[in-house]
């Protein structure tokens, strides 16, 4: 059994480093930007044309939270080539597996994390906004300097949860032909007829990666909470 593990391990780690981790990190970063923008639109007090934008982002969040991630991946990778838009994409929208994967994971993460960020921003007491306004800050400056740094501390545990989930969800990328860690384990299992060993091995690698992320989460929570934990 050790031979099987030692033979497979380098290939699995290589696939993890080449696809699993980069897909997770890039998708999460894009998702965070999307989440922040979505949350800001949703908490905005502006009216007029903003109502349309609010309706659009509400629909986006609803759509991606109400449908399975695997279905979303299939729609983007297998479905979009059939969406022919004259002038823009007359041959349909054909994305490479990697781009389709990152796009779907980003949109999905953005929808979930936007609710986390919205709740975190709304949890900051009104007095913090007022104190920032009172010293002459604009809404944007107050948000950047006063509200978001506090909201990040509040949102860190649920955001870390989302990232850990995303790392595991990248295994679904195998279904759109991305040769990431789980896909490699399937390929090796098909050759050596040891599915139990191979799938346990890949599960252990995901567990190691997620444990490291949990440790990182704890460290970041400690750093961002230093002004809370310093209390007498």
């Amino acid at each position, binding site marked *: 059994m050790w031979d099987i593990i030692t033979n497979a391990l380098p290939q699995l780690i290589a696939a993890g480093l080449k696809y699993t981790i980069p897909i997770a990190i890039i998708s999460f970063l894009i998702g965070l930007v999307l989440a922040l923008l979505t949350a800001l639109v949703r908490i905005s007090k502006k009216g007029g044309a903003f109502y349309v934008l609010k309706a659009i982002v509400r629909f986006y969040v609803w759509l991606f939270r109400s449908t399975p991630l695997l279905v979303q991946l299939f729609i983007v990778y297998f479905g979009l080539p059939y969406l022919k838009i004259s002038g823009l994409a007359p041959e349909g929208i054909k994305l490479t597996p990697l781009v389709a994967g990152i796009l779907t994971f980003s949109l999905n993460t953005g929808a979930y994390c936007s609710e986390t960020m919205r709740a975190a921003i709304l949890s900051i007491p009104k007095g913090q906004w*007022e104190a920032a306004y*009172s010293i002459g800050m604009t809404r944007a400056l107050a948000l950047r300097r006063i509200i978001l740094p506090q909201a990040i501390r509040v949102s860190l545990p649920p955001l870390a949860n989302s990232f850990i989930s995303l790392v595991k969800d990248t295994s679904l990328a195998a279904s759109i032909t991305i040769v990431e860690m789980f896909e490699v384990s399937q390929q090796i299992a098909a050759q050596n007829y040891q599915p139990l060993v191979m799938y346990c091995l890949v599960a252990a690698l995901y567990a190691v990666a997620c444990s490291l992320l949990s440790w990182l989460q704890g460290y970041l929570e400690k750093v961002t909470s230093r*002004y*809370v934990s310093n209390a007498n």
Partner: protein
Amino acid sequence: MLKLEKLNKSFNGHRVLDSISTTFPEHETTVILGPSGSGKSTLLRSLNLLERPESGLYRFDDELFDFAKGFSTKEVLKIRRKTEMVFQDYNLFPHLTVLKNITEGPIQVLHEKSDPAKKRAQELLKKVGLGDKAAVYPNQLSGGQAQRVAIARSLAMKPEYVLLDEPTSALDPELELEVLKVLRQLAQEKQSLIIVTHNMAFAREVAERVLFIENGHVLFDGSNQDFFNTKNKRIVDFISAMTFENI
């Protein structure tokens, strides 16, 4: 000179400020008194535009603004830089050290350079008796210390008026004294102060002008001496009730 004319403000159909007209002279301490729910805090917050009355005029030196027409962002920021607010609950920024709480406004809003802003913040901390607290976070301060930092933060913006909304009502008597000492010193230095308070002894000692409000109306607007010697039965009753409360 800060002047209000015929200010009206309602919350859910209930009139909180009813045609309030008054003047807040520069370099004087004005104390706003009145029973709970009389509209004192709403009036004070209107001066900093944290509340927006539906109608009324707001005159700052030579500039006249109309609440009914609204304010541009530029006008709001201009007024807020001249009128700094100190809140009952301090509202210090918990993620910033005491020093950064004070330098945040000067650096980010007034675009002052970091070193002079820090130097002035240290001076202000010494002034409020907290020279050794620059590096600590707000949650390591007592209520009295936090409120003194909040006062230093407002002074760092070099405002024309400092507006204080019940600055000592969340403090026990010993901590209240720390804050009152600082305010007394500022009053003696002729910093323009507008203070909403329930502390009659303090009002009697530091106020040059008193504004008494009840049910959104101005019942008295005049000198300290005239207020505490008035024959107006409602005010006499209020003073005796509040003096008893302070005992």
